[in-house]
């Protein structure tokens, strides 16, 4: 009877994941948003269930939050662009140039760093970027210097950390582009660059957007890397963390947390329009 009632079957299949995500996860998010409308005793850190928009008022009126939000979005965007620029040629090489054997090795090579701890990698970059680190060591003889700790370091480190999350979807996306399309372009007189610009890139674009969801969202919420290599800078994640983990102001933290939520929901909505969600 399941065969005759597709609706029922879909319902049965969908119930467990939807219970899990809809109730456990969405419920948690909803509770968080509700919390953002409460207030908190600054001293004891106890939440007082008084409805108020004060948190949002503060968020929107104090300049520094706007600055931080824009900076964070800017960094996330930059990291995404850097990763896209780095990932696309590699993915293209893997999907369309490398022999099957090399392809296999490259996939391993790209996946492996994911297993090294995030923290360790961030600290490794701290070492790399240090005034007496390898980068300075190599750059100094050429009259150059390490970028030091600060926003450039944050961008470098985040790009490094999330690069595999960009390479893999783009690679998968390029694999799905039939060779005959490249050949058709070439056949019609398109040189390598034209083919890449007019055929490969547009077709890989959803995959790039899919990858960017990872790089963008991971950067948007990061607060640890900034602490490690960010010098004096702070991002939205730090504000959330400082207010929750540190200042213990859960309602305000929740209010700040709505910013990345809104940004990501908008981002996802845009991504969906280019069909990227299917490609993730």
């Amino acid at each position, binding site marked *: 009877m399941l065969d005759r009632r597709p609706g029922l079957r879909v319902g049965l299949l969908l119930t467990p994941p939807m219970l899990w995500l809809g109730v456990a996860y969405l419920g948690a998010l909803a509770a968080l948003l509700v919390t953002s409308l409460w207030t908190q005793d600054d001293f004891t850190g106890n939440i007082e269930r008084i409805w108020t928009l004060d948190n949002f008022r503060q968020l929107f009126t104090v300049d520094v939050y706007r600055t931080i939000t824009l900076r964070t979005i800017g960094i996330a965007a930059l990291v995404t662009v850097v990763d896209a620029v780095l990932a696309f040629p590699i993915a293209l090489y893997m999907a369309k140039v490398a022999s099957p054997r090399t392809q296999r090795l490259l996939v391993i090579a790209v996946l492996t760093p994911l297993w090294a701890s995030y923290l360790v990698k961030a600290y490794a970059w701290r070492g790399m970027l240090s005034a007496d680190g390898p980068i300075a060591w190599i750059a100094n003889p050429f009259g150059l210097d390490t970028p030091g700790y600060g926003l450039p370091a944050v961008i470098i480190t985040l790009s490094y950390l999330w690069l595999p999350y960009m390479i893999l979807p783009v690679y998968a996306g390029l694999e799905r582009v*039939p060779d005959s*399309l490249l050949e*058709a*372009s070439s*056949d*019609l007189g398109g040189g390598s660059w*034209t083919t890449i610009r007019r055929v490969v890139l547009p077709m890989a674009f959803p995959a790039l957007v899919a990858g960017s969801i990872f790089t963008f969202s991971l950067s948007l919420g990061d607060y640890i890397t900034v602490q490690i290599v960010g010098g004096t800078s702070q991002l939205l994640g730090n504000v959330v963390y400082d207010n929750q983990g540190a200042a213990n102001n859960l309602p305000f933290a929740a209010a700040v947390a709505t910013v990345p939520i809104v940004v990501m929901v908008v981002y996802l909505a845009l991504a969906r329009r280019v069909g990227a969600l299917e490609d993730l």
Partner: protein
Amino acid sequence: MTATAISLRGVSKHFGPVRAVDELDLEIADGEFFSMLGPSGSGKTTVLRLIAGFEDPTAGTILLGEDDVTRRPAFARDVNTVFQDYAIFPHMTVLQNVEYGLRVKKVAKAERRQRATEALETVRLGGYGERRPHQLSGGQRQRVALARALVNRPKVLLLDEPLGALDLKLRREMQIELKEIQREVGITFVFVTHDQEEALTMSDRIAVFNEGRIEQLATPVELYDQPASAFVAGFVGTSNLLHGEAARQVVGEDGTFVIRPEKVGLGPESQDVPADAAGLCVAPGVVREVVYLGASTSTVVELDAGPTMTVSHPNTDTTIDAALERREQRVVLTWRRDHLVRLAEPVATEKETA
């Protein structure tokens, strides 16, 4: 038509142990409609891809006109391809697909729009410019691929089974259309097909491929009437093969002979045939099967001499019922001796008689 459009000289292409193309020599004349016919895996597509520049030959030289293009990339060769799997760009509209070649050649927008629209009309897709490829049927996609290639007015157009997915009616129409287009634009067509009738209908010359080599290269008439081998005889049209003892008995000579079904007459046994007179061959037998083909009827006769022969007659006067009545009856087959084709090579192990 004297100039040469394409020359392959000693071209081979090996994929690991597979010799997809094996020391091929081929000259295709300017403006010619050239077909490549052959069973699946015989290397037709590979030859096309070598000409287009998608594969590097393992050995040999490829010339387009006078130019050695062996090492030249695909985009620098003045040939266009209609792909076996269409290869329509899914992210562009039909019009954008057709415009693509002009666009990368920096043709002005107005002109390329106009030429693309014309090309679409040529392939009867006038109003389809704004559609997306996924909104088209298989046949329509193939026609888009055709328009996309034609719009560039290349010296040579390579077509890899462009009509394979169409139904017979549409295919026939497209055959005529293609042929007309080719005459109009006067460009060289290199056409891959595994449909012999298609090849016979359309081509100036046909190369029959087998295992990476050309078995015979000839005009349609030559190919059909004078097949060079049993393989060609069997692949191009239906053919009856006589050899060994059967040949001795029926033809009266040693050797391997081919006779086409439509050249064989069929009469009742009672009929009086002037045996061996007037250069006629005569062979009695029993009708085993009668197949109605609409325009014609095929009759399969088991000869007393051993082999079965297929005889074909147009359904002009005889009704199919009369033909069916002959089933399991004894008949006499007759054909003119000069319609027999003697094959050079022995038939070896092949058992093709159908």
